[in-house]
């Protein structure tokens, strides 16, 4: 089945629309990082990175990097006015203490009860967890941005995660390439979907039941290519 879908940039754009002015935000490594590019006009979010910087901005030009000024993904960053440095315990106090307004993470799987698996797909190789397990308990709102299905077409939204968990009952909203879905009382509730896809087709690409309230919005993103 070939279906229309949002690009990664469009998924990130959609997630960015929900970030209020003045919000303190942590973006996971990879796709979530794209969210920073799409802050709506007139709104200013403050970005946190686990290794001890608040208020960082874009990457510097190539050749201009200062490698003591990096984010949690070890990429070079710049500072915005009002930035601050702090040590790791203070940084994770911000996370664990619920001071972040929003954390946006990637996912291997999200279960209908809000469980997230995003750190490990099996028992082989070198395991690595980083700050993911802290971030899922860290923000007032924890959301996921992800393709709706895996590369080989399997659902990422499932009844129960089969991959090792990052956290239990921690995800509130999932922005996918096809839909915006909330986790409410142990089940997925559809908020928006691509107008081009039928409810039936969306359900067939989702590994758990989708509750559909009376109003399901259209998920429409601008052309960002």
């Amino acid at each position, binding site marked *: 089945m070939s279906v229309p879908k949002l690009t990664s940039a469009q998924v990130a754009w959609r997630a960015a629309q929900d970030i209020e002015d003045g919000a303190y935000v942590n973006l996971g490594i990879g796709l979530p990082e794209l969210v920073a590019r799409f802050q709506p006009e007139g709104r200013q979010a*403050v970005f946190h990175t686990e290794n001890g910087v608040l208020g960082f901005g874009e990457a510097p030009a190539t050749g201009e990097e200062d490698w003591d000024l990096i984010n949690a993904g070890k990429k070079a960053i710049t500072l915005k006015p*009002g*930035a601050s440095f702090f040590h790791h315990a203070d940084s994770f106090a911000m996370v*664990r203490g619920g001071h972040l307004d929003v954390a946006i993470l990637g996912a291997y799987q999200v279960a209908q009860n809000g469980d997230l698996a995003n750190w490990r797909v099996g028992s082989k190789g070198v395991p690595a967890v980083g700050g993911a397990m802290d971030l899922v308990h860290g923000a007032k709102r924890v959301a996921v941005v992800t393709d709706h299905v895996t590369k080989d077409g399997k659902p990422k939204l499932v009844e129960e995660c089969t991959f090792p968990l990052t956290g239990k009952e921690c995800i509130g909203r999932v922005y996918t390439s096809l839909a915006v879905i909330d986790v409410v009382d142990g089940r997925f509730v559809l908020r928006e979907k691509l107008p081009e896809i039928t409810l039936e087709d969306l359900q067939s690409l989702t590994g758990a039941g989708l509750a559909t309230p009376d109003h399901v919005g259209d998920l429409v993103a601008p052309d960002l290519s």
Partner: protein
Amino acid sequence: MDKTVSSPEQAVAGIENGAVLMIGGFGGSGAPVELIHALVGRYVATGSPTDLTVVNNNAGNGRVGIAAMIDAGMVAKMVCSFPRSSDPRAFTEKYLADEIGLELVPQGTLAERIRAAGAGIPAFYTPTSYGTELAEGKPVAEFDGKKYVQERWLQADVAIIKAELADTHGNLTYRHAARNFSPLMCMAAGVSIVQARKVVAPGEIDPEHVVTPGIFVDAVLEVPKPLQEEELIRSGEAY
């Protein structure tokens, strides 16, 4: 993204009856006198906020600051380590008349409980107070052959704080030993209200020198020539 407010009255307007209120300062150093007095003024004028639980190392001195709050009758309970200082009359009178509550906490445990709340740590173990009456009723556990007392985080609804510099994003520095509990209280409170001697634009505080990052701060008020509580007490001032 501008956290400045324009008056002490506006700054403290949202504090509700029954709130748990952390107030920065150790003795007179770091006491946010203007904010406290605005709160007392509001109570005197409107009867609200009352029934407050106040967290501070001490329990007020003389007739200003926290002592003025206690005298006014708006404090139901103090959480502190040392409710006796140079002139603790206000608290002592009400305490001996059984008109105010006291939760006595060792100073380091008080600091750590406040930090724990800010850091999302609901409980921790400390050697402090083990085997003393202040540990009665608390869980005890042994680690590596030594006994420790379990302590819980101490959360607050609001913190009112005195800083030296603030920027409009709420990044703060403090002056000398006036730092004391203030950075911890900003972390532990749902809402942190700050008076600063000077409010500057973002970027005017070196990112390396920020003591309290703005994420912990909600409102910033410039009070250019702040009263120093110890000086008020020594000159016999009353609110």
